[in-house]
């Protein structure tokens, strides 16, 4: 039980800034999402499921739109630039950089041995000035980066879990949902908010229940 609790939502971090509203409703650009939904095979292997992943991405976008509307902000859809363009390359680098940065933020928070010594507890990460050009292109104030992996038991895994519990007394909590998101200020590239979480519940496949996962993902997002 302790393990279950420990596996719950992590703590979000912010710069403590509110969303800028001097130009009207804040526009938040949803960057290309890194999402993968898998089925747990009877043996516990995560098998990526294309249909679920597709539905999951759509559900995240819908739920995030509603969530931000409720906060008086607007979600802006990302329109991919031509594949070979400089913009496409730069955007890809920003997404990759955000992923790397997310790893550092996580280890700074959770792994004392891997911390950057001069950083301390300060939350002052940045994607740098390259993010400014992105903001101008989309007339957006912020960019939202999303990384989510989720897995769900297939029928075979459920049968296995029931038998394993009754025969061996081993409890299997099923799928594993984990993810992170960050909000980047496109006027300067600063990461203003970051949240990573991991738990053994939640479902992104169905539009109705996906909103609960998205609310968790966006926990602590500046108002």
């Amino acid at each position, binding site marked *: 039980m302790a393990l279950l609790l420990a596996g719950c939502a992590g703590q979000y971090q912010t710069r403590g800034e509110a969303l800028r509203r001097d130009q009207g409703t804040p526009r938040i650009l949803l960057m290309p999402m*890194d999402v*993968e939904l*898998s*089925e747990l*095979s*009877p*043996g*516990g*292997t995560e*098998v*990526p*499921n*294309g*249909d*679920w*992943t*597709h539905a999951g991405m759509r559900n995240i976008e819908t739920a995030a739109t509603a969530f931000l509307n409720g906060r008086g902000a607007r979600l802006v859809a990302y329109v991919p630039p031509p*594949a070979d363009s400089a913009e*496409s*390359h730069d955007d*890809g*680098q920003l997404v*990759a950089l955000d992923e790397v940065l997310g790893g550092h933020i996580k280890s700074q928070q959770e792994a004392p041995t891997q911390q950057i010594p001069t950083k301390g507890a300060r939350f002052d990460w940045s994607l740098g000035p390259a993010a400014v050009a992105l903001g101008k292109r989309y007339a957006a104030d912020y960019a939202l980066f999303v990384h989510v992996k989720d897995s769900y038991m297939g029928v*075979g895994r459920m049968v*296995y879990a029931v*038998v*394993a519990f009754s*025969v*061996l007394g081993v409890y299997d909590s099923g799928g594993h949902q984990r993810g992170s998101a960050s909000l980047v200020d496109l006027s300067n590239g600063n990461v203003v908010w970051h949240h990573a979480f991991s738990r053994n519940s939640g479902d992104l496949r169905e539009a109705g229940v996906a909103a609960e996962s998205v609310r968790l993902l966006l926990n602590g997002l500046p108002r």
Partner: protein
Amino acid sequence: MISRRHFTRGLGAGLVCGVSGCVTTQANQPDVPPGYRPTDADEVGLLRVFDRMEEKLKKSALHLKTPALTAYLKDMCCRMAAPYCPDIRVYVVRNPEFNASMASNGMMQVHTGFLLWCANESQVAAVLGHELGHYLRRHSINRRRDIVGKRDAAAFLGLTGLASIPGMSEAAQTLIFYSVQAYSREHESESDAVGIRLMARGGYDPVEAARVWERMIAVQRQAGNDPTYTKQQIFSSTHPLEAERMGALYGLARGLGPPKDPPPAGLMEHVRPLRGMMLDDQVKSGDDKTTEALLGTILRDNPDDVGMVHFHMGEMYRRRQNTSDLGLALASYQWALASDGAPPETHRSMGLVLRKLGRQGDAMDSFRTYLRLRPDADDRDVVQRYLAEG
């Protein structure tokens, strides 16, 4: 994927295999139809994983945007498997390791190191044909299903109480591992057989498929690596023994016979602009024994740009920072300058070596020649300081 395990170390061989489609099914499975799009959820899921990898690869600094070379490799694929031409996308990846890979979404990655190893276009075609074989026989998804299926079986077996017998669980894990690797080797052999037929269809000389391995075995022997596996590796490797592959391919090549017309021979022309970088990457791989053997083989087999190859051989000796190698480095630079294709950097490196050998006057001459030939050199300031110090 073509390489043997030895050449994939550091790449995370297992992951790369699962991901890059090192694998397949029993022989005689039909080829996928051209334009194939999977419908099964697990295959669609895997395809999406590859699509995401491809998006990242496109933007990676290691993906070389070399339109001429990429188009040349793509044309080779189209020549061998015309109906699949629209389904295949070729990426040249900067990596000194001998390797190429194919994913089930049509993403083919060709390492620069592999292009350096090949003696002619038919040898390149042999490996591209092999990779197309992985694609045609859907090895990615079949390997994935094989792994998942075997783990599932083991999980249920564990419920029967067998797992409580000491050592049984470990034994099961080991068995799964060997079984999965054996399946992978089956795929490699199948791809070899498919690939050599594609080669012949494309007008290439099938015997070169065997010579790729012959060359690799020869270079490894020369480098002091034993190109045979230990008994244990015979079961654990994802790829069949090179000598075994070579023998099987020689057999298949005999059956197919030589091409009617001389096979296309455009490799050197297309690789030349990148050759300096490829040789530099090979030297910097740090595997000096292989570098020495490979560059020696290239010098013996390939009369083009000999000066450039000698220069990089010299760089390998010089970089060791070992006094006894300075003579070898100097000799290599002298060979380079006496041949075609030596870059101006040969003079700079020769100057550095002469300086270490205490031949200040000769060193200064070399530095001056370097700056005359390369007035806009990046390291001009450093070289000028050497000149000022005398």
